[in-house]
């Protein structure tokens, strides 16, 4: 099985790129890599020191009191007060800053990452003209890119930022077996999608199990059953293998096929599979499908029954993205339990929260808090800090960006939330949200983004 390793792949690309440029400038890889390139450019000029912070760093380590030094948008240094002697702020000594913030013993955490969102491609207002999230014209649409349907003026982005969301993954909808490419965005107020694109984040492929594809296509040529779903996956992976082979052996003479290019890139380990799948037995069969075609399922989304196969998920190193308490709206979601996330976590598998909702995305900390509490009530003994990994580090892992964000560690992007109180209570809300060290939301100082759409109406 291919194990995706981003660093190695990137190194390989860096090594090969000049050769392609010089020798074969029409190469597939090169064309693809420059298409719709990220123009994300936060203001990195402000150097900030956050002191007196009660830090949950996202690694699972215990909460500690300390200071965070932000320079050039990165965490330059993070020091625990415990290491030092009482009131000496060593960070103060080593950090040259233009802006100092006293967190006054408030909780400070990494920015939240939502691994499943449709902000921008199903934006507010939810009118037919805005249905750009799913190409419901064929069960196989791996040629489409979610980013081409994203409207950066969705007011939902602004509200999600106020809820502490700094990175979010926008996926195509789930009508199709192969839905298309997902895109990882910085929640940065921008006029363009390119201005939000997470630099160098890998592309993802949305796939879907179960009821949706067979319902949508059952009377439109199929698939009309779960059997048809699997046949559809297999037939197209076979096509992708052939394309991959052709591309590898005779790169220059292969005409580009966007649909198969995406699938072949999955087989090459460059694109991460994000698969909508509710039922336990179905996830287990999908993992066998992945073995048959030698690719990896990075994450099951809406994995309502993940708790039934948490051991299998662990063995396959496949993550599960779950809701805290959504269930029962269709048959494949009927067996949802409130302890799903903690049970999967307890089994040693990679568990995380996800919203799939423009409302839920604003309070993901609460969704984690209630899951965590239910899990411990059922007899587990999970620390808050471990549960925090469901909000930031595990989603970062699932998106291939854990080396850049998801925890508060030296060298990572300074994506930071200062909370009004313990984020495991309902009454705590983000007071300040930083993206790459830039303060984008400050509750008490009237700093917040406001979509063009909001202008001219009553809400300020």
């Amino acid at each position, binding site marked *: 099985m291919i194990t995706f390793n981003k660093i190695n792949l990137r190194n390989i690309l860096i090594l090969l790129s000049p050769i392609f440029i010089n020798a074969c400038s029409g190469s597939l890889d090169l064309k693809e890599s420059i298409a719709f390139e990220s123009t994300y450019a936060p203001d990195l000029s402000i150097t900030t020191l956050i002191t007196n912070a009660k830090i949950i760093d996202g690694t699972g380590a215990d909460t500690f009191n300390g200071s965070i030094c932000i320079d050039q948008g990165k965490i330059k240094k993070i020091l625990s007060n415990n290491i030092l002697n009482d009131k000496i702020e060593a960070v103060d000594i080593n950090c040259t800053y233009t802006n100092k913030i006293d967190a006054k013993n408030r909780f400070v955490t990494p920015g939240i990452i939502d691994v499943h969102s449709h902000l921008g491609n199903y934006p507010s*207002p939810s009118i037919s003209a805005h249905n750009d999230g799913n190409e419901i014209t064929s069960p196989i649409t791996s040629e489409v890119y979610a980013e081409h349907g994203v409207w950066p003026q969705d007011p939902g982005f602004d509200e999600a930022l106020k809820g502490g969301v700094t990175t979010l993954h926008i996926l195509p909808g789930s009508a199709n077996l192969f839905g298309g490419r997902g895109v990882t965005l910085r929640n940065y107020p921008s006029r363009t999608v390119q201005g939000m694109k997470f630099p160098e984040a890998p592309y993802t492929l949305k796939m879907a199990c179960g009821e949706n594809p067979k319902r949508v296509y059952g009377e439109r040529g199929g698939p009309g059953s779960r059997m048809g779903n699997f046949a559809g996956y297999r037939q197209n992976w076979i096509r992708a293998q052939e394309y991959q082979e052709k591309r590898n052996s005779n790169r220059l003479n292969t005409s580009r096929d966007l649909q198969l290019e995406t699938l072949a890139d999955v087989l090459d380990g460059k694109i991460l599979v994000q698969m909508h799948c509710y039922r336990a037995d179905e996830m287990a069969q999908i993992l066998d499908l992945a073995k048959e075609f030698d690719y990896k399922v990075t994450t099951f989304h809406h994995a309502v029954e993940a708790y039934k196969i948490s051991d299998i998920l662990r063995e396959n190193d496949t993550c599960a993205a779950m809701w805290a308490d959504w269930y029962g709206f269709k048959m494949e979601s009927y067996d949802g339990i409130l302890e799903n996330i903690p*049970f999967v976590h307890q089994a040693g598998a990679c568990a995380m929260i996800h919203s799939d909702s423009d409302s839920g995305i604003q*309070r993901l900390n609460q969704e984690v808090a*209630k899951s965590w509490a239910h899990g411990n009530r*059922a007899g587990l003994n999970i620390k808050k800090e471990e549960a925090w990994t469901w909000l930031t580090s595990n989603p970062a892992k699932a998106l291939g960006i854990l080396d850049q964000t998801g925890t508060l560690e030296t060298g990572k992007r300074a994506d930071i939330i200062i909370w009004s109180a313990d984020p495991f209570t*309902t009454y705590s809300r983000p007071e300040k949200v930083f993206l790459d060290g830039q303060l984008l939301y400050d509750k008490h100082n009237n700093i917040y983004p406001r979509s063009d759409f909001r202008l001219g109406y009553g809400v300020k």
Partner: protein
Amino acid sequence: MIRIFIYSFIIFIFLINYSAYAKDLLITNAKLVIDTKTFKENLESNEKLPTDYTNNIHENITIYQSVRAGSDKTITVFFKGIEADYIKEMLGDTDYVIKDAEGNWVTSGIFAPYSHLGMADIGGEELTNDISSPGSSTTISEKASDSFNPQSVFVANNRRHGVTHAVISPTAAGNSVFAGTGSIVSLTGKYNSVIKERAFVFAQLGEKGTQNSGGSRSASLLQLKEGLNTALCNDFRNCRNSLERAINNININSSISNSESEYLIRVTRGNIPLIISVERAIDIIKVINLKKTFKRLDIIILGASEAWKVAEQIAENNIKVMIDPHNNLPSSFETVDSSLKNIIILDKAGVDYAITNLSALGLQGIGTLTQHAGNAVANGLEWHKAFAAITSTPASWFNLSLINNSLVIWDGDPLNITSTPTSMFIDGQAQSLESRQTLLRDRYNPVNESEKEHKYR
């Protein structure tokens, strides 16, 4: 003090007389959360209490409840500063259940102001879904209680979250703005758990109403007015003779039949509320204006995303609102001015409001009501007002005294996301907090050390 004890004694005689029907309930050492009015009316105390109960949280309370299921003879008394042992002594041989709350929060149950609980098994499966009846020729005469299955798994799944009572409502379908008649149920799961069959009539305006009535707000509002007119006219007090009735009926090309309108008469008389779903500020004003013609209407607005813009008018006309304090996005053009400050402004204007969880509402959703109320607090509403908005306030709209019919013991602040009920009593009966969800949980719990295959656990 003597007076108090005499008073108490009288109550106990009363209780003993009726205790043959069900066991009474004594909860000791409670941190009681209840609205001030109910508390004062039910309080027995030998302590001098402060007159201002703004936080509505009272510690060291003993609660005595004598309940007759569905009966008005229910009595609940709170004791402060009187030893539980003394109360036990006074109760003597009375058959009662005692529960030590161990200092934990005790409240009435949660009252869901709007839901479809028990009206469908799987929302997405048409055959199992009785929430609306698009192919039916009747509307208002249909009552939600006839579609209610008290043994739906969602009843127990939501009971576990502290919900003891719920409004259940159909939704409008076909070509009518009238959805039908809604009911009040308790969450005991028993066959007799419908408390009020005809509790209110539900109509839908706004975008939903325009769809059903032919395509415009003009049409939907007209249809609603026609229905109310027909009811007024058919009410003997308003149409003096059969001739006049006939004339009116001919003149009013009503969207509802005479027989259907019979079920609206209680609405036009103001005996039961008319719930109207509507969002946009100007549409809310139109609803307020209905009261000029139909003076006795008891209107509750559901949704009301832009209510904050017309809060004063809503208050002046005694219109009630059910809102979701999570709603803050311009999800549609009729909710462009949704705002988290909606509930805060309505509160300041003196509007009577209940909190719903419309944004999260499905069959399974009412358990999250406490979270929605908690977020209203996070956004600036006083705790006791948010709590009343999911308990006593909406219950009172349907003449239900919630505290007399339900008690819940929690493991923490009920509005905080990490809290959950540990015990529940409805009509004096202890309720199971087990549900299909907890059974699935127990079967797959990582701490379950069973060696057996899952299907044998």
